[in-house]
């Protein structure tokens, strides 16, 4: 069995169990979405306007929840040394970790997002678009967030640092993703926004592993 497949399966199992895994993210997401009608009032007309936007904001926050543990545990218990001395470059290892993180939290959130949006008044027809956009956005969140988590290694109060580093970088996917969903709902051309979102996600997946590997090497030295 290929070592990378072994690593992926282990990372998936760890991400699934890490701090509640998908359940924590889903629970947070559900709670944040359920608070909205309580805050702005039950008027469906008003809710439907903000449903898409609030879904995205909740998604970003939910996917940040378990990110601080992505490298921290491995750093603290010595696994990072083992990973560095393994058969695959640390850049690939970082990519595998983020992919597992996305599969364990980003993908379940993408499946839950249309439920929340429709419950808040978004049209049912928008559901496939919401799944596609949030799944792509989730990839960007996982890789950019992973870079933040690696940079925060070996610093106290790393969680705060992750939020400060990562949130500005998560603004573009939220803008593109939110626009894609809104344009799709209103019948405007949406493909450009979705393409920009996909480009951002792919760029994050391609570039961030280098940042993560560099930050991890720096942390263990």
């Amino acid at each position: 069995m290929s070592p990378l497949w072994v690593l992926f399966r282990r990372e998936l199992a760890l991400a699934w169990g890490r701090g509640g895994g998908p359940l924590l993210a889903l629970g947070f997401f559900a709670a944040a979405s359920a608070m909205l009608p309580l805050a702005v009032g039950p008027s469906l007309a008003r809710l439907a306007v903000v449903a898409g936007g609030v879904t995205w904001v909740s998604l970003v926050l939910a996917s940040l929840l378990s990110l601080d543990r992505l490298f921290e545990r491995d750093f603290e218990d010595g696994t990072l040394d083992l990973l560095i001395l393994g058969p695959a470059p640390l850049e690939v290892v970082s990519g595998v970790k983020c992919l597992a993180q996305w599969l364990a939290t980003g993908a379940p959130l993408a499946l839950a997002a249309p439920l929340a949006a429709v419950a808040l008044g978004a049209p049912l027809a928008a559901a496939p678009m919401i799944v596609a956009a949030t799944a792509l956005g989730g990839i960007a969140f996982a890789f950019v967030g992973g870079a933040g988590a690696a940079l925060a290694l070996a610093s106290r109060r790393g969680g705060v640092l992750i939020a400060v580093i990562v949130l500005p970088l998560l603004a573009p996917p939220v803008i593109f993703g939110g626009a894609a969903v809104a344009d799709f709902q209103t019948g405007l051309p949406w493909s450009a926004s979705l393409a920009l979102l996909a480009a951002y996600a792919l760029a994050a997946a391609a570039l961030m592993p280098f940042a993560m590997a560099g930050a991890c090497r720096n942390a263990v030295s």
Partner: protein
Amino acid sequence: MIARLDIESLAIQRGDRILFAGLNASLAAGGAVALTGANGAGKTSLLRAVAGLIRPAAGRVRFFGTDGEIEAETARRRDCHLIGHQDGLKTNRLAREELFFQTRWSGGGDGAAVAAAEHLGLGRLLGLEVRMLSAGQRRSLGLARLIAAPRPLWLLDEPLASLDATRRTFFGEAMSRHLKGGGMIVAAVHDALPIAARVVEIGG
């Protein structure tokens, strides 16, 4: 396969402090070195520098195969085991899962992993979560990958700490077998190793 390790005028600096400088040492297949020295002398840093985790302030570490020099990155990824202070085990996973991962990641197979665990007296513990194991049992579990995934260079940081007398004997036998098979060991120790080893004092 590494057949010789050369440490050439190595200097290591941590923060503003130079731990040691001008260290020369060479180790050939079948040889063992015991690093001694006071706490903080730089034994762990030397091991981590050989493993490539720390960049030395001066000097270098070179690896040679039977037919010439091997690129350091390749040698470290393919031929080098590092056992540090921590065992790299996740406390909420089964001992078997962790052992299989460490072994496969280092290039060994499941059968060899089970055999190594039984050799180190861990056979009945593999079904337990790591948090149920004692410190000595965790250390043995961390050492099992040395036996299960054959790599010629073992870098060991206090390998015998927290092991009981029986497990020290088992692991001593494993070290002798490794050396007889052409392996190399560099170990940071405070007590004597149960094998014949050249003593190199750090920061003396």
